[in-house]
């Protein structure tokens, strides 16, 4: 198999380049006589002024450009190659959406402009909220949350506000979360002041119903569920789950990270969920930006509309406007109205795809995942432990537990060796209920040739593990750097979180 080679620039840290008195900017000239008149008239005392210039590098524009271009070449995105990072939906991001997001009408608008000068932005937000409600079967959406976890926090705060209004918050302290859930679920529940009760997964890879029945009580505030779940399995007993939780007086929260698989096929609203968050950067194809920005809209059924964050975007038949009068609103979970530069991309994406395109996206994401799953589960040392024989949805979790016991090669090592072939590794060691987990989400935008190639890469890694594991243990070989010492990076004695810390420590050792 041909291997890949990433750029290897011996690029210094930015503080190590440049030279005194170089600058990479130019501003309109300062009117000197005006400056001195002002300095005389309004003398700012030195105690308010910065005494020493910040110790920043001094670089010309060309040096800055080359530095960051070189860094970019030592990075890997969807536009470079296959990026099957499970639960992150790393689909291709259409360029037209970026072009639209860079229009002046997006970049150069201030959120506090009068509403009649922001009708374009408000119309986009109003319509997108309607479309998301239709896609999910919910009643109303807020586009304010900046990311999925921010949406979860919004949702758990609404659960809190709902029980508080009903006078039951003192009693309803628990949020039930399956052991296969994303880490953000328990973290968000905890941030909203709830205790987390974990329910196990059964052999089919679904919520263990008996355990759920035991877990619910008058203390139950709600349940957070991803469907299809992180094993890529559809929770087919969802209606029973819904009944159990609702009968106990809890609310159902839908983590929309995995919505991609069911677009146009089924809707969380129809499954009985009360609150939903979506990740526009996943399902609706906006770029992930090296970690963000994303957007995590939250939708609710009618009985929870009055708890949504303010302001909501409304339409009076003529004008779009911001509505701050939401009776039981939880308030705000971030400044302003939402990540508009991300929202506009999702808006364009939905227009491009339409109902038919979204449904096809779901179908092909599921076809691709099952196709790849069937290929990979036949490779020596690998298998798919949960939900045997069941169709997967958009993703599946491969275990190399057998490979590890037979050859000593772990999921971490498999993932490092994959990088040598110019593909990004899957999500590893998650969900934790699968030993030596490799969570794989090919998405609908991957051509079959790339999927086949990925299967060949894994087959080759399997052979290597049994025949000549040395090379894998030292992988990756072809990335900009070799295996990174992550333990040292977090060790208190060698921890280095800024150039300033580095200089302090360097001086000490000198």
């Amino acid at each position, binding site marked *: 198999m041909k291997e890949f080679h990433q750029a290897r620039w011996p690029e210094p*840290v930015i503080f190590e380049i*440049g030279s005194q008195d170089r600058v*990479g*900017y130019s501003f*309109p000239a300062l*009117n000197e006589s*005006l400056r001195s008149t*002002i300095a005389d*008239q309004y003398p*700012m005392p030195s105690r308010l002024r*910065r005494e020493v210039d*910040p*110790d*920043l590098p001094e*670089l010309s524009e060309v040096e800055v450009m080359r*530095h*960051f271009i070189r*860094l970019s070449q*030592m990075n890997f*995105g969807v536009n470079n190659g296959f990026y099957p*990072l499970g639960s992150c939906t790393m689909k291709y991001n259409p360029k037209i959406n*970026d072009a639209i997001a860079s229009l002046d009408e997006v970049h150069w608008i201030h*959120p506090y402009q*009068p509403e009649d*000068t922001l009708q374009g932005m408000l119309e986009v937000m109003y319509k997108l909220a309607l479309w998301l409600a239709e896609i999910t079967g919910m009643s109303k959406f807020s586009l304010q949350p*900046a*990311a999925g976890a*921010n949406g979860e926090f919004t949702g758990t705060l609404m659960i809190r506000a709902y029980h508080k209004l009903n006078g039951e918050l003192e009693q309803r302290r628990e949020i039930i979360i399956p052991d296969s859930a994303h*880490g953000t679920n328990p*973290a968000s529940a905890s941030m*909203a002041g709830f205790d987390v009760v974990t329910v196990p997964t059964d052999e089919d890879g679904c919520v263990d119903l008996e355990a759920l029945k035991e877990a619910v009580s008058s203390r139950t505030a709600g349940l957070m569920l991803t469907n299809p779940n992180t094993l890529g399995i559809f929770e087919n007993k969802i209606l029973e789950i819904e009944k159990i939780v609702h009968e106990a007086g809890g609310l159902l929260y839908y983590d929309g990270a995995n919505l991609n698989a*069911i677009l146009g096929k*089924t809707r969380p609203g129809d499954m009985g969920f009360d609150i939903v968050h979506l990740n526009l950067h996943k399902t609706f194809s906006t*770029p992930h*930006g*090296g*970690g*963000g*920005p*994303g957007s995590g809209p939250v939708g609710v059924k009618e009985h929870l509309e009055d708890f949504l964050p303010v302001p909501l975007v409304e339409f009076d038949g003529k004008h779009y406007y911001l509505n701050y009068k939401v009776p039981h609103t939880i308030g705000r979970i*971030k*400044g*302003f109205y939402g990540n508009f530069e991300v929202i506009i991309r999702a808006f364009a994406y939905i*227009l491009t795809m*339409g*109902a*038919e*395109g979204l449904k096809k*996206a779901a179908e092909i994401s599921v076809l691709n995942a099952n*196709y790849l799953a069937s290929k990979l589960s036949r490779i020596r040392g690998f298998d798919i432990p949960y939900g045997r024989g069941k169709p997967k949805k958009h993703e599946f979790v491969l275990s190399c537990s057998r490979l590890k016991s037979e050859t000593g090669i772990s999921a971490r090592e498999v993932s490092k060796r994959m*990088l040598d072939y110019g593909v*990004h590794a899957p999500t590893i060691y998650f969900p934790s209920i699968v030993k030596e987990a490799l969570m794989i989400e090919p998405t609908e935008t*991957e051509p*079959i040739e790339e999927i086949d190639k990925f299967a060949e890469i894994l087959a080759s890694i399997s052979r290597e593990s049994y025949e000549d594991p040395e090379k894998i243990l030292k992988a990756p070989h072809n990335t*900009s750097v070799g*295996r*990174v010492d992550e333990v040292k990076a977090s060790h208190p004695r060698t*921890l280095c979180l*800024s150039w300033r810390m*580095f200089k302090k420590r360097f001086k000490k050792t000198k």
Partner: protein
Amino acid sequence: MFTRYLPNDTKEVRKRLKKAMDVKDVEELFSDIPEEIRLTKTLNIPGPLSELEVKREVEKILKRNRTVKDLVCFLGAGVWPHYVPAVVDEISSRSEFLTSYTPYQPEISQGILQALFEYQSMICELLDMDVANCSMYDWASSLGEAARMAARVTQRDKFLVPHYISPERLRVLNVYAEPAGINVVEIKQNLQDGQIDLEDLKEKVSRDTAGVYIENPSYLGFLIDSSEAISEIVHDAGGLFIVGVDPISLGVLRPPGSYGADIVIGEGQPLGNYMNGGGPLLGIFACKDEDYLIRQMPGRIVGMTTTQDGKDRAFCMVLQTREQHIRRHKATSNICTNEALCALRAAVYMALLGRKGFRDLGEIILSRTYYSIKKLSEIKGVRVPFFEAYHFKEFTVNFDGSSRSVQNVNRKLLEHGIIGGKPLTHEFPELGQTFLYCVTEMHTLRDIERLQSILKEILEG
């Protein structure tokens, strides 16, 4: 038509896929979805449209926005118009950065990791702090997280904030604080000069104070003159001192690290990010090099290390045991997706400006600020600024001396292509008919003179 984004949606490939899995119809793969909840109708949404049609449609809608390029805009209050150098767009639109995600695999992601380390390092130099995370959602969410962090660090539950704070930011803080049992208490500020009432502060600071928060420059643009005294008061009581800043001011104004801040937060949008109607923004979050602080930090942090063979310098995410994907309900925050690309843009911006640029830019903004104050003061019935204090970039304009109503003034300005300052009447009724104005390097002296002459015409008739 869908094969453009769905390359496997050809008859041939679909057949191959289905055959390999031994299914006749793709529906078989959805057979585990109960009949009752299968969607039988077609979703009622527009599309599909061609690229040309999408572009036309979205552009048509967006044309209903009026931009600050068509209008002269004097709004700030948390998002400010600043020039964005072309290099910033070039770098942040590089596919390798734009289409990557959180660098879970450091070996293939050194580019974004090093860039984020450099962001952390440069923002630390500006703030005079040691450690920064690689972004929060925005200033408001940084404040919410800072209050929670202060409560965790001190095991106390009272958090003091100034009276003159953005009401939106305060609202976010309250939403973050309430479930954690944190009690947010307001500190008085003098109506005359805006300064923190130190007597009131001393009275309110106690053994249950987790932290005291101030903003410098304040929400209303004036500078806090007693930051060292405040720092001493809170530290004497064993609480943390938290300061919120606009980083663009720190070429000319004292950095919070120099007057005792334990945690510094702020809005990084001015550093090479557009206003975007209010998002995405860039939440700054930094602290001193103290283990008890670092361990409680929210968000991703990138560290510098080496490869395992010790030969090369390398970067990776560190201290992940604080985070949700490892620590789950015990994590320091639930944040996962952040604003990394905005931080990258800020890194490029800070690198371009460098040691001298922030001072140069700060001087330009200061000079514009005082030129505006001077010019607007010449109008009869106008008091600028409301507070007798030094100001940076933003300042209050009070019209109590005029007979015109507040709403009218802004409407009339708009007729002349000017967006006036933000009305504060509802936010702070004690200030009367006051507006918050903002000037940056984007405003020319001519813009300021025009504002003056039109305001004069409106108010003096």
